[in-house]
């Protein structure tokens, strides 16, 4: 029976600090920035965030 083919480079290394620690923090931070931008955009549109003119 032939071996299952390995997809080289397709797996995240188990011992990677970057993927273990940095990536989840980045995801969380980008999510927080997204929420902040949405609130700011609605705030500017509906007038509860001050606008410099």
């Amino acid at each position, binding site marked *: 029976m032939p071996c299952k*083919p390995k*997809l080289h480079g*397709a*797996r995240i290394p188990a011992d990677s600090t970057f*993927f273990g620690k940095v*990536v989840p923090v980045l995801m969380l931070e980008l999510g927080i920035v997204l929420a902040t931008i949405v609130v700011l955009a609605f705030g500017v*549109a509906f007038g509860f965030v001050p606008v410099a003119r």
Partner: protein
Amino acid sequence: MLTNNTLLPFFSTAVMLLFCVAVLRHFFARWELHFLFWGIGLLMFSFSSFAEAVLALGWSRWAFFSWYFFGAALNAAWIGQGTLYLLFSRKRVLPWTALLLLGSLAALALMLQVMPLLDETLFNPQSPISEQYSRIMPPVREGATIRLATPLFNVYGVIALVGGALWSSYLFWRKRVLPNRVIGNLLIAAGALVISFASVLTRMGFGAWLYLGELLAAGLLFTGFMVAARFRPNKLRAAARSRLNAE
């Protein structure tokens, strides 16, 4: 005279056009709708950046139209729609696509309605258009209803695009596969957030950052797309299968 206001939009246009060609080539090779919506959205982004460059050289009514309609109003929503097609079935996305098409047509009507009301005497070629558009365009109560629609398109687009990219990144990360897609999607999310933040700042009256934000976003989005598209499991699987068959 060549200034940052002229040069940055030209660079953004060049990057976006390259990106757009790359995405549309994928569409014509695979006929997948997410590539089509991304391609149209990126083409809108390119029109808008080019219009900025034209407006840095002098006033043009139709350059202003392109800048506001394609750039400020529509492009984020169209790119975001592409991400919805990537994540959900066609059947689920269809009602949203119909809504986007109708909304875009309504926005076109509103934009054409405001065109005769533009006050081009207030245009100053020394300032970026993003700093002066709110003076050239009348307020909402005087006929610029399009200004009410713009945040809706943008919020829809940024939630779909950034939310979709973060969700894809999380799924690949959780399954511990395709690290390039984890990174590529994070770069796409970051690029979309940069341009969204620059747009919100513009609406808050700080338009000087928009051009730099566009260039940075164009670079991040393009890099993210290239990194995510670099590794194709289907291709590899096909190659592995043909190797096994040969053995």
